[in-house]
């Protein structure tokens, strides 16, 4: 990586962090509804993987997807607008926090049913194999919690039986909601589950973005060369609760503090300075720049209009299909009552 790329990667991680901190504030102010699952603490994973993902590599993830949306290249304005449910959001305000995607960027969401996107990922890879896109790898992200549900096992098995080029990546942030891995999973290392499917696997550390980058790059090239699936377990940690409504009774503050000392942004910052790639002053300027981008995203999202009422019935189907019931309130309105 040259200096610009190194600093871009730093900026990306800081944008994710600041945007999510802002989202938490907006959530508390009632500007963001529904669930809000923050990625804070895991930025090195999305930034590291995305920095080595090739344009032909499809990416699909679960509901903790803001970091992935930014790393995939979605404009922070569109991410923030989606969080606020506005028409300029990346899913036109119909998906919300958990359903962000941009197919132009080969980013296929943002899926909120635990583990359900795992068989979809096998299908994405099948699509590439079928169409002769030999150079493409599907990267499927999921949490440790989703490795205990059937979808995971059906998806892994199919990918091995059909020899599909999928990089299965477990982001092990050590808790499935509030339940620690060893209280929910029969094996303590998620990577062991790949053994049952005869699938190559390994566990790597996920707090140092350069480490993630290096390891994932190696594995992606291996899949490109040899074909077939591979499972990576990446050890990481989320500093915030599972979602904004999490009382966090399941872990103590010292544990969180210990991990915060290994903050992925802090680690990378130190590396950049120690390696004389950037000065503290330069990085401070990037921090300010990131803050400005987030300020702008908030302003953009707030200024973006709500989707028009007529969009309620848009995109249910691709083909023109009659709307059967408009709902009582809309019927009253259309009849002028």
């Amino acid at each position, binding site marked *: 990586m040259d200096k610009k790329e190194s600093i871009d990667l730093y900026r990306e991680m800081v944008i994710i962090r600041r945007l999510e901190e802002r989202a938490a504030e907006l959530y508390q102010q009632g500007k963001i509804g529904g669930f809000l699952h923050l990625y804070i603490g895991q930025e090195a994973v999305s930034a590291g993987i995305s920095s080595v993902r090739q344009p032909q590599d*499809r990416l699909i993830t679960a509901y903790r997807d803001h970091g992935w949306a930014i790393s995939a290249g979605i404009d922070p304005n569109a991410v923030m607008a989606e969080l606020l449910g506005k028409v300029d*959001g*990346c*899913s*036109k*305000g*119909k*998906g919300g926090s958990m*359903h962000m*995607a*941009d*197919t132009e960027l080969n980013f*296929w*969401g*943002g*899926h909120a*049913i635990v583990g*359900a*996107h*795992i*068989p*979809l*990922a*096998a*299908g*994405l*890879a*099948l*699509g*590439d194999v*079928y*169409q002769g896109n030999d150079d493409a790898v599907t990267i499927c992200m999921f949490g440790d919690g989703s490795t205990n549900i*059937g*979808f995971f096992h*059906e*998806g892994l*098995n*199919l990918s091995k*039986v*059909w020899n599909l080029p999928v990089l299965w990546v477990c982001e092990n942030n050590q808790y499935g909601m509030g339940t620690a891995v060893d209280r929910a999973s029969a094996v303590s290392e998620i990577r062991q589950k790949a053994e049952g499917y005869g699938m190559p696997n390994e566990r790597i550390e996920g707090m140092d973005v350069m480490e993630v980058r290096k390891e994932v790059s190696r594995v992606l090239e291996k899949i490109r060369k040899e074909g077939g699936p591979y499972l990576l377990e990446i050890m990481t940690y989320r500093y915030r609760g599972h979602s904004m409504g999490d009382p966090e009774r399941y872990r103590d503050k010292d544990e969180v503090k210990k991990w915060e000392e290994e903050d992925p942004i802090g680690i990378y910052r130190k590396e950049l300075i120690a390696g004389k790639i950037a000065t503290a002053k330069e990085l401070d300027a990037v921090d300010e720049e990131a803050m400005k981008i987030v300020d702008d995203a908030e302003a953009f999202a707030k200024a973006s209009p709500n989707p028009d009422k007529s969009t309620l019935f*848009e*995109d*249910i*189907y*691709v*083909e023109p*299909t*009659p709307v*059967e019931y408009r709902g009582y309130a809309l019927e009253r309105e259309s009849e002028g009552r």
Partner: protein
Amino acid sequence: MTRMTMREAISKALWEEMERDERVFIQGEEVGLWGGTYAVTKGFYDHFGEKRVRDTPIAESAIVGSAIGAAMTGLRPVAELMTINFAFVAMDHIINEAAKLHYMFGGQFKLPLVIRAVSGGGRQLGATHSQTPDAIFAHFPGLKVVSPGTPADAKGLLKSAIRSDDPVLFIENATLYQTKGEVPDDEDYLEPLGKSKVQREGDDVTIVAYSKMVPAALKAADMLAGDGINAEVIDLRSLRPLDMDPIIASFKRTNRAVIAEEGWRSYGVGSEVSSRIYEMAFDYVDAPVKRVAQAEVPLPYNAELEQLALPQTEDIYHAAKEVLNG
């Protein structure tokens, strides 16, 4: 036109669409080497090869989920579920993914996907393998649910489903596979999705049916004709979207209706259709609408008990007589 069974009509539709479009492929349990558990895909594996006729593990979430993923990349998969009872194992992928992804991501994803499933009882398969839960799937906006009652419609509707850019659940009835009818030979013979069809004209009573209840309703109409009663038989063909136009037009003439379905009555297809008749044609009602449906029990294995629970031609006949006398 060629006279053929519904099984042959479905098979022909699949074969022609696979010949026509390289993006169409099929996957499911035993669709390949075995030739299909109901022999619908017999000969496909040898002709199209293992790339396009894909045997899967017995894992319905993987079958439907990977078909969704493949459809997202622009392919047009036809995923076969050996029976609709196994669709419950893939329920999340049918309901939470197939029916939602287009809308939920603001129209970005297209899912040109067909899920074929075999429904219906009457073969002594016991309670878990004999259900007709079609109405459940028709509950969800975003999914299209189609179920033919004649061989010709089976061909024309399946071809339309495969060419559709929307996810379609195509429900076949196992006990209809051997029924015969005239089927157009045209390789571009398409029946529109979401359109009901008058299968027999009449002015005295409207009988609404779909799938296996269509031949039953036509037989009942023959019996009624013997009594001097002209029944109109309307085949829904599609449960979502549901086309009420021919039904309301008919009801406004007959003022009396019977709705026949093989599934259970509570929260069923008949409930929906009769509700809409009352909403859309209340002033034309001369007698309460009657619903003919399955007895509300898990289907028993014993053949006599099973047939006792399933709706029969005679039930439709008697229900029609009752609404006429009512």
